[in-house]
C-alpha cells in the first residue's frame, strides 16, 4: 500500500512538472505577441505599458493606432499592401512554375547530368542570398532597373526557384513511378501525364512552395531597402521599418509599430496555423523518409 502511494506521488509530480515546463514555454512563446497586442491597443508611453501589460484596464484600450496606420500614413497602407502583393504574387507565380518543371525533370527523369544539376542547385543555394543584393544592384543600375517593379521581381523569383525546386523534387520522389506509367499505358504523353496526373497529386507541396515564395518578398526588407527609392513603390516591410524608426524606442510610442506589425502578419499567421501540418511535413521531406 505504501509503495503504491509512492508510485502515485511520483506520477503526480511528473505530471505537475510537465505542465509547469509547458506553461513556462508558452509564456516565453506568447509574451512578445501579447506585448504587441496590448501595446497596439494603447497609446500609453512605454513606462505605463509595463504596469498596464500585466493587468490591462479595458477603459484605457483604444483602436486609435489601427485607425492611424490604416488611414493616416503616407504612403498609405493600402498602396504599400498593393505593392507588396504585386511583388510577392509575381515572384510566387514565376518561382512556382519554374519549380514544378524542375522538380518533375529531376525526379522523374534519369537523364545524363542529373546528379551534377542537383549538386549545382545545392551549391548555388549555399551562397548567401543577402549578398546577391550587391551584384544585382550593380547589374540593374547599369540596366536602369533600379526603382522599378521588374527590378525587384527578378531577384525575388530567382531566389524562389532554388529552394522550391528542391522541395517539389523531394515530394515528387515520394510519388510512385507506377502512377505516371499507368497514365502512359492509357496513351498519354509524358507532358500530358505531368499536367493531368502529377500536378494534381503535388498540389500540397506546390501550395507550400508558392506560400514560401510569397512570404520571402512579402517580408523582405534588405532587397527593397536597396532597390526602392520612390514612395509609390514602397512595400509593407519598408513602411514598417519607417514607422519603427520614427515611432519606436526613441519616441516611446510602440502603438503604431505594433499595430502595423500585427495587421501585416495576420494573413501569414493564419496560413501557417491552418496548414502547419503540411508545412512541417513538406520542409522535412528529405530528412524523414529513410
Amino acid at each position, binding site marked *: 500500500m505504501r509503495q503504491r502511494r509512492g508510485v502515485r506521488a511520483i506520477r503526480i509530480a511528473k505530471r505537475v512538472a510537465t505542465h509547469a515546463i*509547458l506553461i513556462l514555454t508558452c509564456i516565453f512563446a506568447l509574451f512578445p505577441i501579447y*506585448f504587441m497586442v496590448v501595446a497596439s491597443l494603447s497609446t500609453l508611453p512605454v513606462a505605463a505599458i509595463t504596469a498596464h501589460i500585466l493587468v490591462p484596464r479595458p477603459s484605457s484600450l483604444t483602436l486609435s493606432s489601427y485607425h492611424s496606420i490604416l488611414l493616416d500614413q503616407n504612403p498609405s497602407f493600402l498602396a504599400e499592401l498593393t505593392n507588396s502583393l504585386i511583388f510577392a504574387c509575381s515572384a510566387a507565380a514565376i518561382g512556382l512554375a519554374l519549380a514544378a518543371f524542375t522538380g518533375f525533370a529531376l525526379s522523374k527523369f534519369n*537523364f545524363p547530368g542529373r546528379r551534377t544539376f542537383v549538386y549545382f542547385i*545545392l551549391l548555388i543555394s549555399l551562397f548567401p542570398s543577402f549578398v546577391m543584393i550587391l551584384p544585382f544592384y550593380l547589374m540593374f543600375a547599369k540596366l536602369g532597373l533600379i526603382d522599378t517593379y521588374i527590378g525587384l521581381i527578378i531577384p525575388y523569383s530567382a531566389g524562389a526557384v532554388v529552394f522550391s525546386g528542391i522541395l517539389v523534387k523531394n515530394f515528387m520522389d515520394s510519388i510512385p513511378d507506377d502512377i505516371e506509367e499507368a497514365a502512359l499505358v492509357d496513351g498519354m504523353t509524358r507532358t500530358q501525364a505531368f499536367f493531368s496526373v502529377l500536378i494534381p497529386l503535388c498540389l500540397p507541396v506546390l501550395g507550400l512552395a508558392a506560400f514560401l515564395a510569397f512570404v520571402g518578398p512579402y517580408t523582405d526588407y534588405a532587397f527593397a531597402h536597396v532597390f526602392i527609392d520612390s514612395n509609390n513603390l514602397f512595400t509593407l516591410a519598408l513602411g*514598417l521599418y519607417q514607422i519603427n524608426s520614427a515611432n519606436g524606442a526613441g519616441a516611446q510610442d510602440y502603438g503604431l509599430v505594433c499595430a502595423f506589425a500585427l495587421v501585416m502578419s495576420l494573413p*501569414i*499567421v493564419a496560413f501557417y*496555423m491552418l496548414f502547419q501540418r503540411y508545412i512541417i511535413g513538406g520542409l522535412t521531406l528529405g*530528412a524523414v523518409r529513410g
Partner: protein
Amino acid sequence: MSQGAAKRAYPGCRYASLNDFFMADLRDQTLSFRLRREWPAYLYLLPTTLVLLFLNAYPIAYTIYVSLTDFGTGGRFSLLTYHYVGLSNYVYAFTVNSSVSWSLIFNSLFWAGGSVAFFLAIGLGLATVLNQEIRGKTVYRTLIMLPWAMPAFITILIWANMWQYNYGIINGMLSYVGVAPVDWLQHTDTAWAALFITNIWLSFPFYTVVFLSTMQSIPKDLYEAASIDGAGMLSKFGRITLPYLMPTIVFVGLMGFLFTFNNFYPIYLITNGNPGSTTAIFITQSYNDAFGGSPAFSTAAMYAVLDFLIIVAITVVVLWRTNITRNWLK
C-alpha cells in the same frame, strides 16, 4: 506485344520485353540510350537553367570578380573605374585587418553553432515532454507554434524594441520585479544573450514540432519490449529515441546551421554588429560595407566570398561524413 508496339503505346516504358528486363541494367547505363529516352528533361529544365545561370551563377561569379578589384575602395574615382588587384583585398583582410576578419569568422561560427546547439537541445527536450499522454496537448502545441508562424522580420523588429535600455519592455518587466535595468545592447555578453534568446524564440517551435512528429512515428512495440526488459526512461531515450531521431537531427541540424550562418535580420535589426563590431557576422558586415554609408563594394564582396567558402567547406565535410543527401540524389 512486340517491342515496337510497346514503345508506341508506352514511350516511357522501362522494359518493352522480358529480354529488356534482363538487359535493362546494362542498357540503362549507356549514355546514348539514356539520352534518347530522357531528353525531354532538358526541355523542362531549360527555363530554370537560364535563371540559374543568369540570375544566380553570373551574380555569384561577378561577386567573386568584384572581390578581386578595388571597386569602391581604391580612392575617389574607384566607383567609376576600378581595377583588377588580384588577391590584395584578401591579403589586406588577413594582415592589416586580420583582427576584424578573424572576429567575423569566429562570430559567424559562434552564432550559427551556438544557435543550433540551443535549437536541438530545446527542441529535443520539449518534444520529449510533449510526447506523453497529457491533457491539453493540442493547445500547448498550437500556442508553442505561434512564434514560428509570425514573419521573422516583423517579430525581430519588435524584439529589437523590447531589448532597448530606456523604453524596452524587458527592462520594464525587470524593474517591475525589482531588478536593475540591464543595458542589453551596449555590452558584448548581454548583446549576444539578447541575440540568442531572440533567435531561440524564433526557431524553437519548428524544431520541437519536427522532433515531435518523428518521435510519434517510432513503433510503440519497441518501448514496450524495452519496458519488459526493465529499461528505464533514460536508457529508452538513449537506446531507442535518439538513434531513431539521428537522421532527422543531422538533417535539421545542418540546415539550421546553414540558415543561421547567413541569417541576416536578427543581427542587423537588433545589434547591427554593435557594440564595436563584436557581434557582427559576415553577412551583416558585408551588407553594411556595401550599403551602409560609404560603398566599399570590393570589401563587401570579399566577405561574401569568404562566407561562401566556409559554408561550402562545412557542407562538403558533413555530406561526406553522413548520407543525408541520399534522398535528394536517389
